[in-house]
């Protein structure tokens, strides 16, 4: 990185799953955000319930953030595996907090990947150090990292006195670690205490205990501050902001849209959204509220939602990976029957079961082509938490206006992140429900041929006459027809809706532009990788970023109109094959000159992207450049 000054501060916490890492990251992020700062965090965890490693990166800055960093300035750890996995990643000059405990040989860490163990052992051997966490700490020190051993045990013993004994306070160890880091960074104590209260809301005794731990740790941190450590001292508070993740934003968007029924089958990471909805079905709403139902499988989920949508309710389902594969047939039915159905798809590592808890953007072309036969659908992809809310809300309008299934794509990086955003303003939104048949006499048949392809939609129990629909090809009246001419007209009618949608959707909802509109170096992307590019703009003013938000129908004309002839196109994607690049080639006259890809199923950071973009700018880029980090 060539401009260290404006880099966001990067904090990392790691530990075994089930030990509270997620909650502690939230605690720290809240404390920072409370102090007026902006946050972006990323989460990494294994497909496991308890025991395997997980970690959280929290970036903090005075300006909006959209990307994490791969080299933390400060690492909070409690046990050996975290030290082993992250000691070499800590930025030189940074701080590493670890338990004041004897070193552990790498061979004793049962969940350390063999490849990583070898990698670390080799590094250690090269430095003539033993293959243990002690060796790694020493290696970190040699790189200028301040390693502080924290006497968690002693502190817990002190806390135990006032709070019901050693066992009762055991979990506050996390708070201690976070608080030490807060103290080191000069984060205001009151923000930390507020964050503790928020994080354990509803449990006064737990709050008290953890606030005591927070004070203790914070004082210790203040006392121990290594020279040169970054400061996150009090800043101006900013009102009207939220700190949340992508799946929460989607759930909120759906609630605002008037979600009537969400069916789902549990799957990581999608089910976090449904779990959130389930916990909040009773939220004050003018009247009614959504049903959220866990059903027997994804086949049931998609078709139940379609059944509900047929009656006029706003219905959705949410899934990931294999779930979408199973929904393929139902998607086609909704397309054929012109049913407004929203499918929220959280991409995760594929193929097959893949890497269920890691991020990936490998499902784009599948989402566009899923289902046998040809039928219209919309595919949207959100780039950050703001988009996630907006897109979730709009997806229903699109679905009802154009009477088709809408696939709303997110990726695991976006679901698992935490981001500060301006408070959502649903009241500014104007819901559109599309053309409904309101005639008491069902004069217009369900699938009437119209100029824009959209027919007035009757509802069962509504004013019109009964109607028919079928997944078999049908006439205007919804009854089966194998007539060749009807077939042609019906294919044309359905296809016309996509043209109608392409005309009706404002260009701002199709693509978002960032950076200098004159810049020759143009990065194209979609989904959460947008964040890394937006962050990169701060360091690379000669860059322009275009995020495709509507992937299908692909906004080819709008995009081409924005690309000067001499633009140097770089596609940035979290996948192996460059799926946006493929779309670009298929749908426009342009080709990407460079493909920047990452398929370790860890998200792309601005930090990793910058040198690559600089190389491209300087004519040193390869056509295909893969971002790799062996320590993620």
């Amino acid at each position: 990185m060539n401009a260290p000054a404006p880099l966001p501060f990067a904090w990392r916490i790691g530990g075994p799953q089930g030990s509270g890492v997620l909650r502690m990251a939230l605690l720290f992020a809240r404390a920072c955000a409370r102090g007026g700062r902006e946050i972006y965090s990323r989460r990494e965890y294994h497909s496991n319930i308890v025991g395997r490693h997980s970690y959280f990166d929290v970036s903090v800055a005075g300006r909006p953030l959209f990307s994490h960093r791969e080299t933390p300035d400060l690492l909070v750890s409690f046990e050996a595996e975290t030290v082993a996995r992250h000691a070499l990643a800590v930025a030189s000059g940074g701080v590493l907090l670890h338990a004041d405990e004897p070193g552990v040989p790498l061979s004793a860490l049962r969940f350390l990947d063999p490849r990583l163990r070898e990698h670390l052992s080799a590094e250690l051997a090269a430095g003539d150090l033993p293959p243990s966490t002690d060796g790694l700490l020493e290696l970190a020190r040699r790189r200028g990292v301040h390693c502080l051993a924290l006497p968690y045990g002693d502190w817990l013993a002190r806390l135990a006195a006032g709070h019901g004994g050693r066992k009762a306070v055991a979990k506050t160890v996390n708070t201690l670690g976070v608080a030490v880091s807060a103290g080191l960074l000069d984060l205001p104590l009151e923000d930390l205490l507020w964050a503790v209260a928020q994080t354990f809301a509803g449990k006064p005794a737990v709050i008290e205990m953890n606030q005591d731990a927070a004070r203790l740790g914070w004082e210790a941190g203040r006392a121990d501050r290594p020279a040169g450590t970054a400061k996150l001292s009090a800043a101006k508070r900013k009102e009207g902001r939220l700190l949340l993740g992508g799946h929460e934003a989607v759930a909120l968007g759906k609630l605002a849209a008037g979600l009537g029924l969400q069916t789902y089958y549990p799957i990581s990471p999608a089910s976090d959204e449904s779990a959130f909805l389930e916990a909040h079905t009773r939220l004050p709403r003018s009247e009614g509220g959504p049903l959220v139902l866990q059903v027997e499988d994804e086949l049931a989920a998609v078709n139940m939602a379609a059944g509900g949508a047929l009656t006029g309710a706003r219905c959705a389902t949410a899934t990931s990976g294999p779930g979408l594969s199973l929904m393929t047939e139902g998607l086609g039915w909704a397309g054929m029957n012109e049913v407004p159905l929203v499918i929220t798809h959280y991409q995760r590592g594929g193929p097959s079961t893949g890497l269920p808890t890691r991020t990936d953007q490998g499902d784009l072309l599948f989402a566009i082509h899923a289902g046998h036969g040809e039928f219209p659908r919309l595919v949207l992809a959100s780039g950050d938490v703001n988009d996630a809310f907006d897109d979730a809300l709009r997806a229903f309008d699109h679905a009802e206006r154009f009477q088709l299934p809408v696939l709303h794509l997110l990726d695991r990086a976006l679901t698992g992140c935490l981001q500060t955003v301006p408070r959502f303003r649903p009241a500014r939104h104007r819901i559109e429900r599309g053309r409904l048949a309101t005639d008491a006499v069902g004069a217009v048949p369900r699938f009437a041929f119209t100029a824009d392809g959209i027919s007035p939609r009757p509802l069962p129990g509504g004013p019109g006459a009964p109607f028919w629909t079928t997944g078999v090809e049908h006439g205007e009246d919804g009854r089966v027809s194998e007539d060749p001419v009807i077939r042609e007209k019906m294919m044309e009618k359905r296809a016309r809706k996509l043209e109608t949608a392409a005309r009706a959707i404002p260009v701002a909802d199709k693509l978002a532009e960032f950076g200098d509109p004159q810049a020759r170096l143009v990065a194209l992307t979609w989904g959460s990788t947008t964040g890394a590019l937006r962050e990169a703009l701060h360091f690379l003013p000669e860059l322009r970023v275009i995020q495709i938000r509507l992937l299908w129908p692909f906004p080819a004309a709008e995009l081409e109109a924005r690309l000067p002839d001499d633009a140097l196109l770089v596609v940035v994607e979290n996948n192996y094959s460059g799926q946006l690049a493929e779309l670009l080639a298929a749908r426009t006259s342009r080709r990407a000159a460079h493909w920047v890809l990452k398929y370790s199923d860890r998200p792309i950071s601005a930090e990793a992207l910058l040198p690559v973009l600089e190389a491209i700018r300087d004519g040193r880029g390869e056509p295909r450049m893969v971002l790799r980090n062996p320590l993620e």
Partner: protein
Amino acid sequence: MTQTDPHANFAAPETPDWCRGCGDFGILRALEKALSGLGLRPQEVVVFGGIGCSGKTPYYLAANGIHTLHGRVLPFATGAKLANPALTVIAAGGDGDGLSIGAGHFVNAGRRNLDLTYLFYNNEVYGLTKGQAAPTLPEGAQTRGMAAPNPQRALDPIALALDAGYTWIGRGYAYAVGELSELISRAIRHPGLAFLEILQPCPHYHPDHDKAWFTQRLYTPVDHDPLLTTNDPARREALHAAVQRLAGQRDERIPVGVFLEDRVTPPFTTALRRQQPAWPEKAPATTPVANGEGQPLARIDALLDRFAV
């Protein structure tokens, strides 16, 4: 079910393209009769069809007709009923549709005592795909579409419906239109999940099981009391055992009629209201989502506050 417009005519002008003598004709007539007899309004009835000869039923009815996907008739019907509980929702599908590709939904629908009526057309074959074995065809049987005897054993839809938790279970016969229509009415009136197996001759692919074959075998058990009105486990156990026994009779004598009418198990409504007390009064399909200006009616402010920093 609104009781206006009694005796609406549910017959549609469309010509069925079933084979001559197909049992589906009888079922269609019985269904028309039942719907009309119940005084339902066509607009408020939604008939979902599976895929198969049987699944074409909704084409030929003057009610809302949704022709779904093979094996998915229950999920579609469930979604519609959840979204608009005021509708009378009927699912009609074949034995292949219901117990082969749809068996997962068949079984799991039993976990929700939702007010649906499931008409299960048992012709022991796959009609529309040219006579392969349905999961109800006994092992060793060979129908007109098969190259060899059926290597797989038959499933018993009644036994499975019982164990899955359906709260109304009956069996009817396609050509006995009057009785069948009465059974369908009772199934529709049952306020929970009703399962009606309909013995449906397929003269085209399964000519052995023709009218004569059935007529010799069908009987109505007189001593069977299907009503369950008490939570007494012994009564439930005894009744279940009796239904199991009736289910098992498929060879020499085949009972028809109502096998189970469980008035004790609470409807799914009870469970759903725990999650969403506004249901079913404020149903997803009929509750407005926006005000006159299009602004969302849902109030998410309190929820947003939780994320405020």
